[in-house]
């Protein structure tokens, strides 16, 4: 009987826990935390995303959208472990209102009806004073957060503080088992009563993207997608080959063959910062084509419903004080906005995409030659450049066969494929830095290159592209590099400068034992909320908070 009871007990507990886990877990396995619930236009909002799902993807997309789900800004961030931390610049021109931040994985874009969690962000335009009313989210879509008050305690050393005073807080996390919840997000920030009461996490349902999404999981990189259409038309060609070149060092080159829909996708591994990209689409019948980038955007079926809220005078005063603080911050803080990072992408292999060049000719080592015909004749053995009746042809020697190839080689200028020989004719020694070429029949995927001729110009700005048809030169935001929020490094502010931070502490803290944190307050007065947020073992978000006052 004793054994039977034990088995029954075991079965019961297994059934209980498995059932519990199914009901609580969010569908995406992504949880987003922000350093603030409100901001002034022009601010930088920091986010942390934890990836709890079983996907192989380790790259998350975070997008900021308005109440109508029109994307305002988006960021792509690679996870370190299970967490991704990044920032989003709030445009200075953004009107006052409630925006929503949401996180998704690339593979989610093709799904319809998936639960999407949208975290509210109250944005106050710094030029808009005495705002009488605001559209705030209706509470029916709000997601309930559980409180673990019995397991978490927040004990500040005082309840009332002066401006710029140091706050010491004991966070009781000893009752939480690290295997259930490994880390929590601890935050201390100024309170906006309106955002505190009306804001939070809201639920919506996803709608599939209009793009054709390849079955692909982004690992250590992201997919850059776009569409090819005929010039001055929305019609896509039956088939086109799109080349993507990132001409900055290290050089990147890849191609994609589009179908009837015209969509193309490129996977950029470990590409961070902001880079210049050149897109080029060509079709068999040589129609003039244009290629456009389409950013990965999470669509939703129904936006979060909103309602009008008239602001009280204290709320208006608070908002005006924030706007003033925004102006002063810009005056005194040089690095108020984080500058764009330069492009970086580690080289995958030691050799270029098209293989080692057999020969490299540095033109500065020779006397000056006027055009490419002379250069090829005098310096490039095995390269034949001919112009007859206004048509130029290039033929390379097939080194292994000891005969010239009967078709054009793969031609590159600054790492960008070029299919018109006309362009080469104008380049002389004054323009070209070096020429690299290969006299072999090479394959790059399904592309066959009867020789490769690569020109590197002295002028690296690629101005020559401007007059070329079928080329699109664009600046592409890649994955966001690692950056630390400025308030984390600010230990003691300078007394002669105004300190107008509204977020004082925002860090991941290990559970399993009680922790002590401390942070300096700023010149801003009002209520400060110290919160502990995290994800319970059943997948539900919990939040505990304590209010202190700055007078």
């Amino acid at each position, binding site marked *: 009987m004793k054994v039977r009871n034990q088995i029954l007990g075991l079965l019961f507990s297994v059934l209980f826990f498995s059932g519990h886990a199914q009901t609580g877990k969010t569908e995406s396995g992504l949880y987003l935390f922000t350093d603030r619930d409100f901001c002034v236009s022009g601010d930088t909002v920091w986010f942390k995303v934890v990836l709890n799902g079983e996907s192989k993807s380790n790259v998350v997309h975070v997008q900021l959208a308005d109440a109508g789900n029109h994307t305002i800004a988006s960021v792509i961030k690679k996870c370190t472990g299970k967490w991704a931390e990044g920032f989003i610049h709030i445009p200075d021109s953004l009107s006052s209102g409630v925006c929503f931040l949401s996180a998704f994985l690339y593979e989610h874009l093709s799904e319809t009806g998936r639960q999407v969690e949208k975290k509210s962000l109250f944005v106050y335009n710094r030029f808009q004073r005495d705002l009488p009313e605001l559209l705030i989210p209706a509470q029916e879509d709000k997601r309930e957060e559980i409180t673990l008050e019995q397991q978490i305690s927040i004990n500040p050393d005082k309840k009332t503080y002066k401006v710029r005073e140091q706050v010491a807080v004991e966070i009781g996390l000893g009752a939480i088992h690290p295997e259930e919840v490994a880390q929590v997000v601890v935050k201390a920030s100024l309170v906006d009563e309106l955002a505190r009461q009306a804001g939070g996490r809201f639920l919506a349902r996803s709608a599939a993207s209009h793009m054709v999404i390849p079955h692909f999981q982004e690992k250590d990189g992201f997919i850059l997608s776009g569409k090819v259409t005929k010039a001055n038309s929305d019609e896509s060609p039956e088939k086109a080959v799109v080349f993507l070149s990132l001409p900055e060092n290290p050089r990147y080159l890849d191609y994609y063959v589009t179908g009837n829909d015209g969509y193309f996708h490129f996977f950029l591994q470990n590409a961070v910062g902001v880079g210049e990209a050149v897109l080029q689409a060509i079709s068999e019948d040589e129609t003039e084509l244009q290629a456009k980038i389409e950013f990965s955007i999470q669509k939703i079926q129904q936006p979060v419903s909103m309602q009008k809220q008239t602001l009280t005078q204290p709320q208006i005063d608070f908002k005006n004080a924030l706007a003033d603080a925004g102006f002063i911050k810009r005056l005194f803080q040089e690095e108020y906005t984080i500058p764009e990072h330069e492009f970086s992408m580690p080289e995958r292999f030691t050799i270029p995409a098209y293989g080692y060049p057999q020969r490299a000719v540095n033109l500065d080592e020779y006397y000056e030659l006027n055009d490419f015909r002379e250069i090829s004749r005098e310096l490039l053995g095995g390269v034949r450049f001919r112009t007859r009746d206004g048509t130029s042809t290039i033929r390379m020697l097939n080194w292994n066969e000891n005969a010239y190839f009967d078709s054009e080689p793969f031609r590159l200028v600054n790492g960008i494929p070029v299919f018109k020989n006309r362009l080469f004719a104008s380049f002389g020694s004054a323009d070209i830095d070096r020429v690299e070429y290969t006299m072999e029949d090479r*394959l790059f995927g*399904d592309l066959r290159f009867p020789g490769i001729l690569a020109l590197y110009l002295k002028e690296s700005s690629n101005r020559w592209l401007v007059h070329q048809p079928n080329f699109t030169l664009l600046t592409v935001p890649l994955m966001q590099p690692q950056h630390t929020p400025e308030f984390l490094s600010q230990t003691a502010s300078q007394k002669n400068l105004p300190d107008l931070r509204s977020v004082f502490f925002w860090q991941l803290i290990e559970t399993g034992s009680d922790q002590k944190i401390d942070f300096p307050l700023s010149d801003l007065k009002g209520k400060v909320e110290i919160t502990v947020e995290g994800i319970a073992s059943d997948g539900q978000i919990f939040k505990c908070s304590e209010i202190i006052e700055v007078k």
Partner: protein
Amino acid sequence: MRPEIKILLVVFTFAFTFTGKAQNSTLDWKALGENSNRLEGKLTGLTYRIPPLGNNTHFMQDRWVEGSILLEDGDLFDDVRIRYLTFQDELVVYNPNLKQLFIADKEKVNSFIFNYPHGRQTFVKLYFDAFVDAGYRYFDLKYMGTRWLVTFHYIYEEKTSVYRDAYGKLRDSRLKPKKTYFMYFPEEEQYRRVQSKRRWFVRLFPENKREVRRMFRRNNLRRFDEKEMIQAFKLLDEAGFFN
């Protein structure tokens, strides 16, 4: 119209049609399709044509084998048809879209696996610091542990009496596949040539000769062919002799 003129017209029409096609970009549009899109990356290499006077001894395998190629950056190409070109120590891959053979760029390949019905054969690229021809070579990986047992396959030209080959050409040599076994020290990246003899293995451990002999005897290792050498490496590794 006179028939000669008609014929000339047809010939001219064809000639112009084909000249028109040659003006287009040099891409093989028939080969390019959705199968050409591999987002992780593409295999690159040098096109390869089996030489007219070549024979099966150039390759290790008689026919194309389904296999996989792992590149240096961790990108894995599955279900590719490959053959090891022993004659040049290269990996030859078949591109089904272009219907073209090519030698995969050795700089990019890390390892490749042949999936036979009876098992797998793994090749790894390792740096071989020889006096002549130092560089990266493909080694047949037989055992991978604290120390590896690897085989280098090569083709040896053996002198024979004069004979006529299949093409009726007079020859005085024959190509013979050969292999050399090496013990590879992965941490030191060094090699030691392995002799397929029991005595060689015993001499590796002069202080433990009796234990090694006893271990080989108990496991019935006598002939020291390839199978038994792999077994010997496994036993020695498990017994901690390689530590």
